[in-house]
């Protein structure tokens, strides 16, 4: 108990902070709540809201109401591949292989296009929350909760992949209870970018937590790119400015409509985006925001909606969609659980007018059936990927299915 008291006083170790914060929050039960309940207030204790679990064995598209899926006029959406259980982040190989990650499960899949059909190979097995996948110059990079590994020449050995070589280890030294899964992307600078989320819903993070960092795969040297980022599970570079844009999940158990989840841009390396002190650029946290001012932190460019869980995002750089879609941002919104009237479960398109004013509009909808039902949805987008022909893939971890959105005759 003495250790706990010291930790409470210093707020140094997130895992124990989680325990103490829980003890303060829950009047009756002295034990730690699950990470998703951390930070719940006494008057919310009887809430029936809870996160959803994917169908870990996947579901067959023939059992799903695919006819409910909607895209704008001129576009078409169809099932591209199924039988990819808990399909999460997407990466594209030079030869057209689509790599698909897992978060709660342990595999990385390689989907090969055989013309009319797709062949799903279980490429890697038994990994530790391998949510991040990135492909660059023939190499597949995989970010597990604790390390990033590389698999060179992977597309020539999909049926017999090489052993991974570790790029960097020790990314999860405390086996943190929450937000330990990573998104991974190769930057224009040749460095691998990844997130380390806050270990709980609303806690003081350790110095390497609630950040986006990058590592040089040649030297293994890490740099902090952005701080005060509660958890980002999707980022990409603006093709024109080369700046890093990222989605971010706001805290839970504050209110139904606040704070919003965010779309942010890093203009200067090391910028602080507010967590845990200030949310959505203008809302001080009731606990951590005391004696702080939101002016100190970088606000979001776009508020994406409260609890919508934005995950993967890409700038559209293909030639298939109409010209006005070029360089727009497409964001997969996994969908809410911490809200009575559920929202999200779609892909949205963010565009900017000549003056830089953002506009967000729906792009792929139809997964949400009944905002008050439990569950409210039949599918949940996780990531988007622009293919060589300019079509867009969308992964759905709830069903283990990947959809393809195309425009025009293709």
């Amino acid at each position, binding site marked *: 108990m003495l250790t706990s008291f010291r930790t409470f006083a210093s707020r140094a170790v997130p895992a124990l902070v989680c325990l103490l914060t829980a003890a303060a929050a829950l009047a*009756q039960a002295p034990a*730690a709540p699950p990470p998703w309940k951390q930070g719940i207030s006494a008057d919310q204790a009887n809430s029936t809201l809870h996160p959803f*679990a994917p169908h870990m064995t996947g579901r067959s598209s023939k059992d799903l109401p695919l006819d409910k899926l909607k895209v704008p006029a001129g576009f078409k959406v169809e099932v591209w591949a199924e039988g990819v259980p808990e399909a999460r982040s997407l990466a594209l190989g030079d030869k057209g292989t689509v790599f698909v990650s897992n978060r709660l499960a342990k595999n990385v899949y390689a989907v090969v296009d055989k013309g009319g059909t797709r062949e799903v190979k279980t490429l890697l097995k038994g990994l530790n929350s391998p949510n991040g996948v990135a492909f660059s110059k023939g190499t597949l990079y995989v970010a597990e909760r604790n390390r990033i590994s590389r698999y060179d020449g992977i597309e020539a050995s999909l049926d017999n992949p090489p052993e991974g070589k570790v790029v960097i280890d020790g990314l999860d030294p405390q086996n943190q209870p929450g937000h330990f899964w990573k998104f991974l992307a190769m930057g224009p600078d040749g460095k691998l970018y990844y997130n380390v989320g806050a270990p709980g819903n609303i806690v003081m993070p350790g110095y390497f937590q609630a950040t986006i960092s990058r590592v040089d795969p040649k030297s293994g040297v890490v740099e902090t790119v952005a701080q005060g980022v509660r958890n980002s599970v999707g980022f990409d570079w603006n093709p024109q400015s080369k700046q890093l844009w990222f989605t971010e999940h706001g805290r839970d158990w504050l209110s139904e409509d606040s704070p919003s989840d965010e779309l942010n841009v890093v203009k200067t390396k090391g910028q602080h985006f507010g967590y845990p002190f200030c949310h959505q650029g203008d809302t001080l946290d009731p606990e951590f925001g005391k004696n702080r001012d939101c002016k100190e932190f970088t606000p979001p460019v776009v508020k994406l909606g409260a609890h919508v869980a934005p995950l993967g995002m890409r700038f559209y750089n293909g030639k298939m969609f109409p010209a006005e879609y070029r360089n727009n941002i497409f964001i997969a919104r996994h969908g809410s659980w911490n809200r009575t009237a559920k929202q999200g479960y779609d892909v949205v398109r963010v565009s900017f007018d000549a003056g830089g004013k953002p506009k967000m509009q729906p792009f792929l909808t139809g997964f949400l059936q009944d905002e008050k039902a439990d569950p409210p949805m039949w599918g949940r987008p996780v990531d988007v990927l622009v293919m060589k022909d300019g079509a867009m893939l969308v992964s759905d971890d709830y069903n283990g299915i990947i959809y393809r959105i195309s425009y025009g005759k293709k």
Partner: protein
Amino acid sequence: MAAALCFFAADAVSADEVPRKAEPCFVCHGPGGNSTIPTNPSLAGHPAQAIAMQLYQFREGNRKDPQMSPMASTLSNAEMNELAAYFSRQKPAAPSHKTAPENATAGPKLAQQFNCVQCHGPRLLGQQHIPRLAGQQHEYLLAQLRKFKAQTRADLDGNMTSAAQALTNRDVEVLADYLAGLSVQ
């Protein structure tokens, strides 16, 4: 022995066709998934996703059991889905367990206090990936709650382990007695 069980099973289960691969399950889990062996859970009437989830957990080695681990190891995802759909459609038998009167009063209070109803549903019939508790085998309920409390039973997201930490040994006994006798209507 298996043939006799199959014959018996054909009388006892719902009219819809029994998938061949469900028949071995009856040996331990009872005809149609209504268990008559106190340590073995009933499967009838659980949400399909809950059954598929546990088969998945056994196959992936997240949850370990000397009988279930080998049984699940040969199942494909499609087979798990088929078994789960079948058992979810079976009618759960009325519980034969009789809850002690004091636990019939105390049980519902604990189910509210410890938020069981929050995930398992207001009548504890389960939903989505969360199993039915009402009318489940008494010994099985005791064993699982104790394992969650001892942190030796896997769960996908840590919820049950965390929930069980708050329970005293007495709470576990009261809850198991209450749940095992709870109507499944």
